[in-house]
């Protein structure tokens, strides 16, 4: 396949069957490989859409500074787009994210402002919003509330899925900014009535939920619960176990959030199998495992890996 430049190659990712993990011929699991994007994650879609929307709206001018609360993939995607389109990027991210992410951001030329580990991304969002208010010249694209994020998935991810799997019965993805599920979910529901849109939400260690009070909680502005059919909370141990299962059973080297998604998908598959229903369950592999190697997730025993992940933002 040939493209005029890197950005043109974005999207159009492969959908691969998982024959060894699928319970049987009537209940099939499929993985959409979003690591096959320019910077290796699903976020490339949202990053390009958000930047293009901001340019179109006149918010981004040559040489402008983009600010974003991000602990990884969005920052990396934005760093690449910013670099190619001539913007500066400042990322606000919690200090307890993996070394590879920080190195990659800095290699692209992005600046990192660290937020405290305690309070996780809530704190990064709060700090970024505060910085944006105090620096009106900076542009915060704000992935958690920017409609262009969900639109990217409505216009690209969803249609690609339906084109490759017209018989889709379930769509499973990680729930973070909620962009993927809202955008692709909406598209799929419009074009395939009865499809189930299922969220796999990462469950972290206690530190991440350490708020001062319960009203300090955070729900992404993009989130619309009506788009979802079901929402599962997946622990790090389960996500880890499934990530290794993906690698060992299907040869797929995926990031840890994908393990979480597989965990939810396998639950759906088991349910369909027991009910004697046909199912074609498509899941998003948001990224590959490279950025997570230093977390120790792929080495040693599962127990050792779980212990190492405790306290980290693993997805």
């Amino acid at each position, binding site marked *: 396949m040939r493209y005029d430049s890197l950005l043109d190659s974005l999207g159009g990712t492969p959908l691969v069957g998982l024959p060894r993990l699928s319970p049987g011929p009537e209940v099939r699991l499929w993985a959409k490989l979003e690591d096959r994007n320019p910077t290796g994650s699903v976020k490339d879609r949202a990053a390009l859409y958000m930047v293009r929307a901001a340019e179109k709206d006149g918010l981004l001018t040559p040489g402008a500074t983009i600010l974003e609360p*991000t602990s990884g*993939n969005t920052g990396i995607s934005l760093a690449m787009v910013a670099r190619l389109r001539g913007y500066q990027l400042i990322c606000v991210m919690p200090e307890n*994210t993996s070394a590879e992410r920080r190195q990659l951001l800095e290699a692209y030329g992005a600046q990192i402002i660290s937020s405290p580990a305690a309070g996780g*991304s809530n704190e990064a969002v709060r700090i970024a919003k505060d910085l944006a208010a105090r620096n009106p010249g900076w542009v915060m694209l704000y992935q958690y509330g920017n409609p262009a994020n969900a639109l990217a998935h409505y216009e690209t991810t969803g249609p690609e899925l339906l084109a490759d799997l017209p018989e889709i019965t379930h769509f499973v993805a990680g729930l973070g900014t909620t962009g993927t599920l809202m955008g692709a979910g909406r598209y799929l529901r419009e074009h395939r009535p009865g499809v189930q849109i299922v969220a796999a939400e990462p469950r*972290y260690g*206690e530190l*991440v*939920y350490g708020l001062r009070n319960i009203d300090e909680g955070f729900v992404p502005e993009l989130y619309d619960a009506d788009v979802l059919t079901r929402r599962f909370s997946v*622990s790090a141990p389960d996500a880890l176990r499934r990530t290794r299962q993906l690698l060992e059973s299907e040869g797929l080297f995926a990031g840890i959030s994908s393990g979480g998604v597989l965990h939810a998908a396998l639950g759906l598959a088991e349910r369909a199998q027991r009910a004697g229903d046909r199912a074609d369950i498509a899941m998003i592999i948001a990224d590959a495992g490279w950025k997570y190697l230093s977390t120790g997730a792929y080495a040693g025993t599962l127990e050792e890996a779980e212990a190492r992940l405790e306290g980290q933002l693993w*997805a």
Partner: protein
Amino acid sequence: MAIEVRIPTILRTYTGGEKSVEGSGATLDELFSDLDARHGGLRDRLVDDVGLRRFVNVYLNDEDVRFIGGLGAPVHDGDTITVLPAVAGGGR
């Protein structure tokens, strides 16, 4: 009958520091009321006059209850309820 309810750090002032308490009831609603009898004030942090509070997520056996009946969700002996504040999480 025993249903385990995991309590987030922020609400452990109501449970004397305990990270997990037990209760009973036929539905989540009844369970919360049951807990409130022993841990006064806890229910009010979880539920307002409209339903589950906006920034509170409740999972029944790891599934968000808002999609399986909300406060009316049936609960059974051996179920696990996990209460967590809504957070931005990480990794994006």
